[in-house]
């Protein structure tokens, strides 16, 4: 595959708005059966999806359109009006992907994505640029947790002192918890958030809809949700979009950012939290880095991804012993235990903190844990029991912990008595 050593390429913007990367192999698997095929034939055989703890249902026609568009970009399929055909390249790719393990599958996919869209490598590099002192930690902010206003009438949408104070406090809080995680000047921040708030306030109210197909217009809106959306969009605009010093223009919009983050997390290039500790918003940081050369076992090279300085992209992985992993895991567990004071703590919280401390992907964590459940030094108990605090909307959507194909929600670790 052609290597690109600068960001200035003729790149595509129209990434598909789906985040499940197993769709590629599933689709190729279906396509292999037919000599030629239409979209609908492939769609009806693709499996239904879940997101976190929520069943999200069948893949939609729109998602199939976008999937096909990407595969056309990759040149895995060709098209003659409504009829499609697997190319020789597509067939080779299928043969490779179907025989490889998940780690190599992801590496293959990320190469194609970077080759087509440039975003994977660019995004990792951008995170490092934004907060080098904390190894690329960035927060996608949401309003501070203390602010919980009631819903308001649609007309009551003026920008107020209250909104300004909350916006300012959110910026301060993010940078207090994680210095440099939101590297934006206060005035710039407030101006941008206000601009987007005002724009969102002009949007015509939607219909109530629902099961009765209610045609009445919504009378009220949720200020917290609106401000949250305004903050996210402002952050993306300022940090990932309009900066004149960036080598590519308009790399990410609000919509595409929401797709790239989970995709790149799935591809192990970065880690992206749903909710994390006391952070108002989401934390993301790279679990990969551009290096000139590498001799450490702690890094795996991804072929075909280089930055403008010709450095290759490397994934970070755990290279210490199993015992060291368990000791580190116990340390993270114990901190959670001492904070919550209950034996079984959320394995999602333990996973998130472990990944943050040791800069590995969620997938690597799960593999490590799955391989080390039987230990001479520690008794590890995993449970699948969704607790009351794990049933709120945002908690249900968290990336689950899957170990040896089973979903778990709780973990307890005790040290065994030394003989």
């Amino acid at each position, binding site marked *: 595959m052609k290597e690109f050593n600068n960001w200035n390429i003729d790149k595509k913007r129209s990434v598909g708005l789906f985040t499940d990367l197993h769709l590629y192999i599933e689709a190729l698997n279906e396509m292999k059966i037919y000599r030629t095929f239409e979209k609908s034939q492939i769609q009806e055989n693709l499996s239904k999806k879940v997101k976190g703890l929520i069943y999200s249902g069948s893949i939609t026609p729109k998602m199939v359109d976008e999937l096909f568009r990407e595969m056309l970009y990759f040149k895995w399929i060709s098209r003659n009006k409504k009829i499609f055909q697997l190319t020789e390249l597509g067939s080779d790719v299928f043969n490779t992907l179907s025989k490889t393990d998940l780690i190599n599958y992801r590496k293959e996919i990320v190469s194609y994505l970077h080759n087509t869209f440039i975003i994977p490598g660019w995004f990792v590099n951008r995170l490092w640029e934004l907060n080098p002192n904390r*190894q690329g930690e960035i927060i996608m902010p949401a309003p501070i947790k203390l602010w919980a206003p009631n819903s308001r009438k649609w007309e009551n949408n003026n920008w107020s002192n209250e909104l300004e104070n909350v916006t300012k406090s959110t910026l301060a809080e993010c940078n207090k*918890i994680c210095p440099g995680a939101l590297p934006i000047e206060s005035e710039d921040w407030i101006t941008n958030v206000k601009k987007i708030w005002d724009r969102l306030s002009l949007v015509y109210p939607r219909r109530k809809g629902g099961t009765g197909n209610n045609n009445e217009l919504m009378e009220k809106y949720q200020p917290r949700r609106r401000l949250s959306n305004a903050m996210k969009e402002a952050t993306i605009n300022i940090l990932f979009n309009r900066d004149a010093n960036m080598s590519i223009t308009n790399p990410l919009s609000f919509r595409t950012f929401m797709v790239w983050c989970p995709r790149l997390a799935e591809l192990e290039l970065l880690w992206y939290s749903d909710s994390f500790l006391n952070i108002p918003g989401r934390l993301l940081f790279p679990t990969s880095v551009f290096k000139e050369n590498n001799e450490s076992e702690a890094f795996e090279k991804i072929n075909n991804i280089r930055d403008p300085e010709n450095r290759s992209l490397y994934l*970070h992985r755990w290279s210490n012993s199993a015992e060291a992993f368990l000791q580190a895991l116990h340390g993270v567990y114990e901190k959670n235990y*001492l*904070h919550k004071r209950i034996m079984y703590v959320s394995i999602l919280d333990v996973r998130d903190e472990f990944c943050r*401390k040791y800069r590995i992907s969620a997938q690597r964590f799960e593999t490590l844990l799955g391989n080390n459940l039987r230990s001479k030094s520690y008794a590890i108990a995993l449970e699948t029991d969704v607790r009351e605090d794990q049933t709120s909307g945002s908690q249900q959507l968290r990336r689950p912990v899957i170990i040896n194909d089973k979903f778990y929600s709780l973990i307890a670790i005790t040290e065994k008595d030394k003989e």
Partner: protein
Amino acid sequence: MCANLLRKSGPKNFEINSRFKKYGLTKNPFPPIPGVNISSSDSRENGSIYLEELRSNEQKNFVKMFKTEDASDINRISLLMDYQTAKGRGIGKTAFLNHQRVSIMKDFGYELSGGNSVLFAIHVNPIPNGNYNTFWKVSKLIIETLIKQEIISFALCRLIALEGLLDSKILDLPEIEEDLLNTLGNNDWLEKHDVPIFTLDNDVRFVLSKLQIDPNLVENLVVWGRNPEGFLQHYFSKISDSYFRKDQSKLLFNDIVKLLNFAGFDKGIILFDELEKVVQPLKKNDRRTFVDSLRYYLYDDLNEHTKLSFFHCLLVIHPYLQEILLPHWDAAGMDRFVSIGGQLSENYTILFNPIEDKLAITLAQEYIKNFRIESEKIEDQIFPFTKEALKKAHEYEQGIPGRYLQLLHKAIEQGITNNWETISEVEIESLVGKKIVDQKETMELPEVNLQG
């Protein structure tokens, strides 16, 4: 085999058989369960071990509220707030309230009011999930407490004495002053002193009829009034909820006030503990209604209580409850009567702060003293603890007495199990060494450096 199944427990000699003999103690002197349970026979739990100096400031403020020549000057609502813990646990409020109730009831407020008034006090404890979404349910709770804590019975006994329904030779008997309820309230005792119960009941009936209160109440007071369990069973428990709903708290604020006032009481102090159990489960509108009702019945309504300014409610709150009540309090105009927040609230509020370390040592000493084996003659009053150990425990529990005593209980148990000679700072640290971790303000840096 059969002998074991039918045997009874033998007499306990804690001095000889105590597991805690090593420390010169008959048992673990500290309460195993945090909190006060006034019905418990265990002196560690029922509030009988009480150190006044621990709460000398709070006591001064409490006395200040009631020491006045004219009982009608006493404000109808005041507040007691836990200042230290946002959700109010372990600071010692219940112990304080229990002590106040016992002190007032021992002489009907003679000491508290400087001899100017006759007072009674009840300690009201709402039950969790009790569903107090309408004010009549709160009134019903107060009436139930008045019965269970023997106020109605005391009132009947006083009425009998003050209305001259008995011969003065009987009223002069010293045992009456020592135990009013088991003398004037006990038909067996009265009969032993040749008092014809039938005649007495008729006299009481006649006196009560002058009060113009509910005839059904009169009849039940005559028959059961001096017997709290009987009054509860035969009268109170038979009143339906629909009666209370229609009654709109008249039973409490009219009839019962008339009875109590007629029995010579100038004021009734309602120590309303754990108000959060009433308020927190309510929806926003119901909270507003609750405050409105409080204002109506205590200040605005034309009832016997407002005429006489009879009840004083000491409401126990904590900062979180203050936060949720404040907007409704202001909206109902209650801030004109009692300020619940802001600077003016200091005039109506007893603030509960954590205790200092010196007092924590004295508190531990008081508990230990009650369970010391006398024959052991141990001079060190806080043995097996050292002063530093008690200070450490106090520091760890941030001066919250309930939690502090519980930690000391645990320390004694561990000391016996692990055969500690004394319990010093080191032993306390081993119990609490892995401190509860609070989330830090700034996230720690990662353990690895990917660029390194």
